[in-house]
């Protein structure tokens, strides 16, 4: 098998990966399942924070969206 890589292909590959790193930054290296897991974890964390907050039973949801 001929595994020879032309300089043009090499340059294209290098440019491509550089662009990904530039645009997506650190997340490019994070596996998708970790990102999904972190997002679900965040929802759970918010849920726990909300559950801990004591409210009078009489408090209605905001129906006016300005103070």
């Amino acid at each position, binding site marked *: 098998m001929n595994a020879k890589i032309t300089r043009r292909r090499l340059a294209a590959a290098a440019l491509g990966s550089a662009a990904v790193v530039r*645009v*997506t*930054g650190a997340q490019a290296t994070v596996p998708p399942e970790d990102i999904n897991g972190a*997002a679900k974890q965040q929802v759970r964390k918010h849920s726990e924070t909300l559950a801990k907050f004591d409210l009078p039973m009489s408090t*209605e949801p905001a129906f006016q*969206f*300005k103070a």
Partner: protein
Amino acid sequence: MAAFTDDIFFATIPELNAKLKAREFLAVELVRAFAQRLEQLGPRYNALALPLTASAIRRAKLVDKELKRDRTRGMLQGIPFGAKDLLSTAGEPTTWGARPYADQVFDYDAAVLQKLDKTGAVLIGKLAMVELAGGGGYNIAGASMFGPGLNPWDHTRWSGGSSSGSGSAVAAGLVPFAIGSETSGSILTPAAFCGITGLRPTYGLVSRNGAMALSWTMDKLGPMCHSAEDCGMVLEVIAGADATDPGSARKSFYYTPQYYRQPKDIRIGYAPVDFTERVDPSARPAFEQALAVIRETGAQLIETRLPDLPYGTLTSTIIVAEACSIFEPLISSGKVDQLADPKQIAGLKAGLEISAQDYLKAMRIRTIVQQKIRRLFADVDVLLAPTRMGPAPKVSEPLDHRATESPAPKDPGLSALIPAGNLAGIPAISLPCGFAGGLPVAIQLAGPAFSENVLLAIGKEFQTRTDWHRKRPKLA
């Protein structure tokens, strides 16, 4: 044809209006010059979503005919502007900054664009934005089908979001003003990072008809300009009742700086920690100087702090829950995977798991937020804090990079003013107040609902005493 220099490209609305009235140039010349500049330089900052040069020139010719007959329509007549690409324009693509909507075309103009058109302002282009205005939560500057918003003050820095193109286009003198939107920080942040003046109006003051919905209960549209005075003039045009927007406050707005109270009669609440420990050390001198200028106006500075409430949890739960309902077809079809930011994709998918119980609990706590913020304004007229705690982050770094680096001070001060203010639906203005490492930083003022004139008056006073809003980036 008149020669257009930087003095024109960075002029304020009254300055351009005076030159149009004096016939120093025609509206069509002004519009053509700005449109060419936007087309030429906009891509440099990933600021341009869609040029509308041909239609703008046609519209400007009509404005000239009116001006020739002395038929005047106000300060914005003949002034070019740009609009965030979440506002629909009839027959043209409106992408919401997101690849799945790249070919989306509406058959009507957004209400704000209709109002601006009626007054003779000329739309010269749609401006880039963070995809879906950041719905789901984004963590990279490149979260946009247009690429990362680049800051005219430094190309390696972010322009801020989600109104990225609106911020950088005004800062680079590509448009005299732009329309942005804010759900939680999307006008104030790019205004601060790009060194321009941005106004987030009271919830419901500006119709959102024809604007992408991210969160029905928190979305606002507002002006991004070179000065507080410009923001007042644009707001006067775009504000007003609209039966087609269920959130409309059914109120008009008249910019009346001549009637505002003297600065010495205004009580400004602030937290010293926000201007010392909490801010980026490089930005501290600028913020301290800004505080000194506010003090010089004679305003009474009163120490205060926000009530201790889970603002971040509330904004995230409410915005994501509403966004997931709005974009449910996008998420369930799998097209959400076409978005640029993996975190945003994951955030939208996970958001479907937010329970009704949690959403309602967040909305009930929001009632408490509103009550407490209202009470806060019994003791002060406005709140003052840094808009962001430092200059724009690097494009190459995750946006939460700084947050994970520095330990937060114990005293929260007013650091949560952006989420708190958006939950409460109150107005705020961001004013450039100096530089840190060559990058702009800004202060924000927030007031009770419909206190825009007070904020604009203080902003105008601040900008009379400083010239940070007149600084121009050196365009490479």
